[in-house]
């Protein structure tokens, strides 16, 4: 056999062998977004502190989030897990407090959560991309990839992240819901209810707040000029974001 014909036959043989391999590798199944999934160019939230103040002591948003996301109630403050909670006004907006600010303003309970920044330091420092920014602006958390290094907690200027120092399951009161709990050694935080947006629902805190008749929390797509958040952002000149000077560009806006 001449070298030329040998190479021809060998080449044909390899090509014939590759067909069944390519078939086996080529998958007939696929994944896709759910029908009716809420899609946005840039999700954002507006919290109206004045409206929130009309309902003294209300924690509907916090309760709804805690229940649905199986957030444990750990008494030791060093081990607390928080996604959305109320913080003293003077701790949230330090730059807005003067020596003459009245005590009742300083002590105002202000709703805080992850700010879903445009330029999130937590994402930048995460060594495993367990936390990442989605194209629609949500700063997402993939607990499967989290190695518990807590760089993100050091990076976050808003203290929006919690670490599971202990097994959270014994501290989840009431019947747990289907949402996965977390495990010792991972960091967690608010995800703007990404799992609900994915099936066309809105974040729980927003629905809970509307449910009380207050409507202090508005959520929507800033990329859609007709959305409620776009209208508020355009019409309110006194909108405030937390610590804008550090350049993270938070997408939770406050009306003080």
């Amino acid at each position, binding site marked *: 056999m001449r070298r030329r014909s040998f190479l021809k036959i060998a080449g044909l043989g390899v090509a014939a062998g590759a067909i069944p391999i390519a078939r086996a590798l080529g*998958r*007939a*199944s*696929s*994944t*896709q*977004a*759910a*029908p009716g*999934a809420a899609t946005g160019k840039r999700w954002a939230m507006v919290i109206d502190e004045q409206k929130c103040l009309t309902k003294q002591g209300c924690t509907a948003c916090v309760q709804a989030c805690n*229940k*649905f996301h199986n957030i444990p109630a750990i008494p030791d403050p060093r081990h607390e897990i928080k996604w959305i909670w109320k913080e003293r006004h003077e701790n949230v907006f330090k730059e807005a407090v003067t020596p003459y600010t009245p005590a009742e303003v300083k002590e105002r309970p202000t709703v805080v959560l992850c700010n879903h920044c445009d330029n999130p330091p937590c994402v930048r420092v995460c060594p495993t991309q367990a936390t*990442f920014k*989605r194209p629609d602006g949500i700063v*997402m958390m*993939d*607990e*499967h990839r989290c190695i518990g290094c807590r760089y993100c907690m050091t990076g976050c200027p808003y203290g929006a992240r919690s670490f599971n120092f202990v097994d959270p399951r014994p501290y989840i009161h009431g*019947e*747990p*819901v*289907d*949402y*996965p*709990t*977390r*495990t010792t050694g991972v960091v967690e935080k608010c995800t703007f209810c*990404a*799992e609900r*947006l*994915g*099936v066309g629902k809105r974040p729980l805190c927003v629905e809970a707040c509307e449910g009380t008749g207050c409507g202090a929390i508005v959520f929507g797509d800033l990329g859609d000029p007709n959305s409620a958040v776009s209208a508020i952002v355009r019409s309110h000149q006194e909108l405030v974001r937390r610590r804008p000077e550090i350049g993270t560009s938070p997408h939770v806006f406050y009306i003080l």
Partner: protein
Amino acid sequence: MYSLGKILVGLGVFAGLVSAPAWYGLASGSKGTPPELEKSKEGKDCIEPAAYMRAKHMELLDEWRDAVVRRAEHVYVASDGQHHDMSLTGTCLRCHSDPAKFCNKCHEYAGVDVFCWDCHQEKKRGL
């Protein structure tokens, strides 16, 4: 060949040690039969053929995880064209209602740790 005897004894000991698990298995009389798994109560087919699920369920679940958490895709289109919600608790447990009688049983037999249930709920509850 100065130490043929010693070398042969050494090789014999080595072969014995390496094959010890096999001897142990034979001596303890376990036939190595796979465990009896609980059949689906709904009695219908799985989302993919059983042989595929047996061999590749871990790859499938890995893909589900990345699709839902990282790409915000919630629907799995199986090779037969059927649509399924990609949810361990919501979809898999609808038929295999008790992981202790299905997942864990086989994983114990195979000696592979399964830690899905450290976080994911073992019972479908709702909400």
